[in-house]
């Protein structure tokens, strides 16, 4: 099958768009670029909707919301997706339509969707497929079971990724092997021949003609009853295996979660510790700041005026004011004596006398006539001020250094706390751990109970099988006495032989396909990883991935699983393509299919994207890649000349996307 185009009308955010795909043999790549939310997933889902009438969206109403808003009540509007494709020599036009009406209370009212298929054969004749047959026709083109492998679906990626990461038996791989290579038909045949009451062998068991004693009848009933019991026991054993596996998985997950939470408890302790450290450091910082302010307030006058003090002292030293002044006296004292006319010693101070003149002379050495005393006092004051060292600059520098380093520590601690808080996200760890422990206990209880049941069942099964064999042998012996019964035995023997032979072939083919799938996947890995990754699938479909170092870099587990899934899908596509080229006559092999993928390139580094981009067009016959705009340039660069068609989605608004 090759996809030629898809047309979307009123389908979710697409009002009227058509996307053409490359059908060229070499330039087989179509890329569709769009930022998140433009409708990449929608267009991938449009294929599912058109073919099978289903989408994985929670909202099953696919009509464009804007169109719906503009609709008038009771006037139907059509949603239509048209896919043109080529399958074998026939050109198909597959159209799914669905009418929507709006009620007067603004409710949405969808009708059932309708599928129409037109076929144009090699000679140009067009026929329309009858309505009762359209779904069959689609299933012949692309069986629904297979579609997820080609329309790269998010759910299957998640499921497979989980299987791979857990190293569990992969149901997806097992299903893929049987679905894709047509072995399903063979296993149906096997079931038809020999499994259960209503199989061919079962029918023959009813053909025995009873003997006169009714023993054969009794034996047949017993054998049927035992077979029933055995079938049921086998079913139950499978169920138990699955339940035990699920319980083990839950247990393991709980264990991992507990580890995370115990890390969490440690982190919580750290966060509290850092919180306390911040409080201490802030308090220390506050003390340091206080010390700075104290020093500034107590020393600022001395500090600020020291240069003025020096200049003043230099100036005063030049002025020769010292030496003659009388200490601790003032001119007023002399004036007082002069006004009294008597000196302290009793000498009369009459104006014009020598004594009067002498005392008057002292006035020159006393303030305010003399400033020597004031200057001397001033100098003493300065001396007092600087008798202690002015340490302001050093103190502030020291404290500031401490404050800065405290600030830095506080900032680092706050960042640590922020980081921890992001991780912890406000959970109560003890409660969570207790709950998880409880679940582990429950799981252990369930596992033990199931194991006991398992062992008992196995024991009973063995006994039942022995008894059935005994009854069977008995019936066989008795049958020899009757002609009809001998014939039944003969038919049964033929049927059994056919059953065994088919079973053997199925096993061989399955094993061959599985090995081929494994080999192809590893070849693809070889391309992408230079052998850095290898995968093995054992007969029970246990998947194991071995990671070797790739240029010294080990991939994250997400990228690994995506690489495995990508390789898986690419491998299936490649196998299908090779089968077509080889012109296999084997009817069980099907048509090659396109690979439509919402490319998860962002999980990989640039070099890996290059290898993947180079591998894709080689592996599939037609490649349609939906890609994020950020990866668009890279993909375009590496897919290079294999791209024939390019499209880009542009978001007009949340409800409307255009193709440009």
């Amino acid at each position, binding site marked *: 099958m090759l996809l030629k185009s898809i047309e979307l009308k009123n389908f979710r955010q697409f009002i009227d768009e058509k996307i053409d795909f490359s059908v060229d043999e070499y330039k087989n790549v179509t890329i569709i670029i769009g930022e998140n939310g433009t409708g990449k997933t929608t267009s991938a889902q449009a294929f599912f909707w058109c073919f099978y009438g289903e989408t994985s969206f929670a909202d099953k109403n696919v009509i464009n919301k804007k169109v719906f808003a503009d609709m008038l009540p009771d006037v139907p509007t059509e949603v239509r997706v048209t896919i043109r494709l080529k399958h074998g020599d026939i050109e198909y036009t597959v159209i799914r339509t669905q009418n929507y009406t709006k009620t007067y209370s603004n409710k949405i009212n969808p009708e059932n969707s309708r599928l129409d298929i037109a076929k144009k054969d090699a000679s140009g004749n067009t026929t329309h497929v009858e309505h009762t047959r359209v779904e069959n026709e689609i299933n012949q083109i692309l069986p629904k079971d297979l579609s997820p492998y080609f329309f790269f679906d998010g759910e299957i990626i998640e499921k497979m990724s989980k299987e791979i990461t857990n190293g569990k038996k992969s149901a997806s791989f097992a299903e893929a092997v049987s679905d894709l290579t047509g072995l399903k038909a063979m296993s149906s045949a096997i079931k038809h021949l020999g499994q259960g009451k209503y199989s061919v062998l079962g029918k023959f068991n009813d053909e025995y003609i009873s003997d006169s004693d009714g023993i054969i009848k009794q034996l047949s009933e017993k054998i049927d009853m035992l077979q029933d019991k055995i079938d049921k026991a086998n079913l139950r054993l499978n169920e138990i295996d699955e339940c035990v596996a699920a319980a083990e998985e839950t247990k393991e997950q709980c264990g991992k979660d507990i580890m995370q939470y115990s890390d969490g408890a440690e982190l919580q302790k750290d966060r509290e510790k850092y919180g306390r450290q911040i409080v201490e450091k802030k308090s220390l910082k506050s003390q340091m700041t206080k010390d700075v302010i104290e020093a500034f307030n107590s020393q600022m*006058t001395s*500090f600020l005026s020291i240069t003025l003090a020096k200049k003043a002292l230099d100036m005063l030293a030049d002025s020769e004011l010292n030496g003659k002044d009388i200490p601790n006296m003032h001119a007023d004292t002399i004036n007082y004596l002069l006004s009294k006319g008597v000196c302290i010693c009793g000498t009369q101070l009459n104006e014009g006398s020598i004594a009067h003149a002498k005392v008057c002379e002292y006035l020159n050495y006393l303030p305010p006539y003399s400033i020597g005393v004031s200057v001397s006092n001033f100098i003493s004051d300065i001396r007092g001020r600087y008798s202690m060292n002015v340490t302001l*600059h050093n103190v502030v520098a020291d404290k500031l250094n401490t404050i800065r380093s405290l600030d830095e520590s506080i900032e680092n601690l706050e960042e640590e706390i922020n980081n921890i808080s992001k991780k912890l996200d406000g959970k109560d760890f003890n409660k969570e751990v207790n709950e998880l422990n409880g679940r582990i206990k429950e799981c252990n209880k369930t596992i033990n109970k199931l194991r006991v049941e398992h062992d008992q069942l196995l024991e009973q099964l063995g006994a039942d099988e022995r008894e059935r064999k005994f009854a069977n042998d008995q019936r066989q012996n008795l049958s020899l006495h009757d002609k009809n019964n001998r014939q039944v035995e003969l038919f049964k023997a033929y049927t059994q032989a056919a059953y065994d032979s088919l079973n053997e072939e199925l096993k061989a083919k399955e094993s061959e396909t599985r090995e081929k799938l494994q080999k192809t996947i590893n070849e693809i890995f070889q391309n992408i990883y230079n052998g850095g990754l290898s995968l093995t699938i054992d007969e029970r479909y246990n998947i194991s991935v071995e990671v070797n170092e790739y240029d010294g870099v080990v991939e994250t587990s997400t990228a690994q699983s995506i690489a495995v899934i990508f390789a898986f899908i690419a491998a299936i596509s490649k196998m299908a393509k090779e089968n077509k080229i080889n012109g296999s006559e084997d009817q069980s092999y099907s048509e090659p299919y396109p690979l439509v993928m919402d490319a998860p390139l962002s999980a990989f580094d640039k070099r890996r994207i290059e290898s993947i981009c180079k591998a894709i067009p080689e592996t599939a016959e037609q490649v349609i890649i939906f890609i994020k705009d950020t990866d668009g340039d890279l993909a375009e660069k590496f897919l290079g000349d294999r791209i024939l068609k390019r499209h880009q989605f542009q978001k007009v608004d949340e409800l409307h996307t255009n193709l440009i």
Partner: protein
Amino acid sequence: MFDKQYRFTGTHAKMVKELTSGFDESGKLKLFKRNLDVYINAPIIGFINKRKGQKNTDNDIADVSILGDQLIGESSNLEYVFRLILLLDEEYEPDKTKRLDKAFRYFGKEESENDLKLFDEYVLGGVEIFHEKLIQSSSSSSDYIAHLYDFIDDFNELTNRGIESKDIVSLCVNGKQT
């Protein structure tokens, strides 16, 4: 002299208020503990930077006052600063003898009225410089301390130039060293 209430008005009142407001989280730490501390030290900075401020008024800004009693309590510091300015301001009084007279002979006398006006202008100039250097562009407690350090560091390097207390004491004891 320095015994009557002093008022900062207008923009200067606002600046003094900011210089004496709490800047840390607790609101308790203040760059200048009292308005008086601004009044004592601002004239030194005003004079050293030759910056005189002009008194202005603004009805929307409350005056910031220093009581006379407080001034009297700090008169020795105020007189010390005032004397230094009178001794050293050659622009105001180029004659050295007259500067000596202003600083000592007529200090605190009626003749010194203009000198007090000069002192007040330097007070306002100094307030403006303190505000520019310490308050503007500070927002967090760390900023205030960092700017205070920058101010002290620049002053130490550009103005004090390595003068230490012992140099001053030596000058007081021995006079000028030649």
